[in-house]
């Protein structure tokens, strides 16, 4: 039934909390060694889906296997083989860096000598050697995040779940963090990472865009860009506001996003020569502007699919 090559395989996962449908019919197939991204705003069901795949939440309906283990029935067995980095820092703030790692190593029952070696190795690898005797609560955001990742991979899991790991971290630390993720993926670890940063999503091998608990699109970032049913026209002008008003008057335009002096205009693919159409409208309004059709970025994809979803939601 499940493709053996797939580390994560989920069919129609649903989860409701009371009246709220947090996750609706999410199906996933994640091959080994990939970095798979969950992109979506807060409340889109990223954390809930991750928790279901870890065996922490029971799905209301639907099935999922991770590493060939059923998340409903074999959750305990699964826990030996997966690592989970929670959204909120969840190590003990009143223990030191080293004590935290030692505790985790003991809980995973790593034997004595191996345990010391592994903790030492992680302290060096994650640049925490100097902070080893420091309480975790006093670490900086970046240090906490490195410690949390070190703890999550301490028992060398073959599948790693990261729930918004970089939300409290500066750009340099984020870059380093992603380097580590790529190294882990090269060694064969499958990684599922949730984020609301476009640049991070763009780094993923594959990603799913979640919106209000529904998976609205998935695929590689490039494929997603090709696959959307809008064209992107970029308008560069001095008076962005006027341009925006002018373009808003075109009924077919589905979205206008401003980036500094540039405006990204999303126009459904059915319309031929979108750039020409935009130019005509601007000329009618006596606005001088540079107009080009460009390759869709991931952000355009995100805007396009989430707006489409919202529109469908209203229609329904």
């Amino acid at each position, binding site marked *: 039934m499940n493709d053996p090559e797939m580390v994560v395989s989920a069919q129609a996962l649903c989860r409701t909390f009371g009246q709220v449908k947090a996750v609706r019919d999410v199906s996933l197939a994640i091959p080994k060694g990939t970095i798979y991204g969950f992109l979506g705003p807060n409340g889109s069901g990223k954390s809930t889906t991750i928790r279901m795949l870890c065996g922490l939440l029971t799905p209301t309906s639907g099935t999922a296997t991770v590493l060939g283990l059923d998340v409903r029935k074999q959750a305990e067995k699964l826990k030996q083989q997966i690592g989970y980095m929670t959204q909120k820092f969840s190590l003990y703030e009143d*223990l030191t860096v080293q004590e935290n790692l030692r505790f985790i190593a003991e*809980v*995973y029952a790593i034997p004595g000598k191996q345990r010391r070696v592994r903790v030492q190795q992680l302290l060096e690898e994650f640049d925490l050697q100097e902070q080893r005797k420091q309480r975790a609560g006093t670490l900086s955001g970046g240090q906490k995040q490195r410690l949390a990742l070190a703890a999550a991979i301490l028992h060398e899991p073959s599948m790693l779940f990261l729930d918004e790991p970089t939300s409290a971290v500066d750009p340099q630390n984020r870059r380093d963090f992603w380097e580590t993720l790529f190294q882990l993926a090269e060694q064969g670890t499958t990684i599922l990472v949730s984020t609301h940063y476009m640049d991070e999503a763009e780094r993923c091998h594959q990603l799913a865009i979640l919106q209000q608990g529904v998976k609205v699109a998935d695929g590689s970032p490039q494929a997603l860009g090709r696959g959307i049913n809008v064209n992107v026209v970029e308008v560069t002008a001095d008076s962005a506001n006027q341009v925006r008003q002018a373009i808003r008057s075109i009924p077919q335009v589905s979205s206008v996003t401003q980036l500094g002096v540039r405006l990204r205009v999303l126009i459904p693919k059915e319309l031929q020569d979108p750039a020409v159409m935009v130019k005509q409208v601007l000329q009618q309004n006596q606005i001088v502007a540079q107009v080009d059709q460009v390759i869709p970025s991931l952000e355009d994809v995100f805007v396009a699919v989430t707006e489409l979803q919202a529109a469908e939601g209203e229609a329904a």
Partner: protein
Amino acid sequence: MNSLLRIFAIMRKELLQLSRDRLTFGMIVGIPFIQLTLFGYAINTDVRNLRAAVADQSNSHLSRELIADINASQVLRFEHQVGTAEELEDLLDSGQIAIGLYIPEDFDRRVVARERQAAQLLVDGTDPIILGVAQRLTSVPMSFDTQRMNGPAENLLEVHNYYNPERRSAINIVPGLVGVILTMTMVLFTAVAIVRERERGNLELLINTPVRTTELMLGKIAPYVVIGLIQVVIILGLGWLFFQVPLRGERLDVLWASLLFIATNLSLGLFISTSAKTQFQAMQMTFFIFLPSILLSGFMFPFDGMPELARNIAEALPLTHFNRLIRGIVLRGADLQSMLNDVLALLAMMVIMLSLAIRRFSKRLD
């Protein structure tokens, strides 16, 4: 093997966290000191229906009338009829009665002669309230007294105070405090133990590891068992130092009774911890247990003096049983075998609470 490693890992972690939590650490030592100095005085009150036994060696018309009169006063409730004074002492030792009435063979002659007291009240004097009751009994008007003889019966009953000849109230308070302090600290510490991890977000990480529920519970309980024993030593040590409270029973019995009671309280705390949503809720629930424990367990008021409903509630509280055990061992030199019922009651409560706690704790978030 792995299981043991994980239990020890959790124990070590708990101890490390405890040593860094100065408030809790202060409570462990501070509470015994403060309570011991606070509860210097006992609260006297009117009591009825104290459990009693009678050894009537005279078995005469007069002696039966005396028993009937005391019965009519409702202060004592005779539950046992025995033959000798030694048997009365045994009943006192095991805590089955609070007062024994001994009527000697020559009772009738003594009543008539009125040279010395005609009968004896053997009293568990460790509880000053019971001692007071006995003193008052000596002045209860006896019917045969007024009808057949002239003058009051001042010399009819002699009070024989067992275990506490100096009539000090501290002697009863100090062993009682052991239980009160253990209830207060042990339940509270464990009640917040799991809720705290949940509140701080640690639990989400912990339940995603292979640690088993039983391992988690045992690892969390174990450090506090040691802490509880330290408290027992502090309280009894201070009681001996400041109030000259003796230890008449075996130390080993004290150890076993304390261990059992500590484990029961910790299990109760864990159960609260799995039910409460916040640390504040856990504390509220702890006080919900703590208040009736103090008031109904026999620590403040003699158990036998309470109305039936209160006594039934008290039987469900671990502290009631422990108070009987610890007072029996420390003050009367009794051993655990003679108080098996209370031992079994504590054991049952512990098993029930711990299994409920383990059952209620889920390694899932839903």
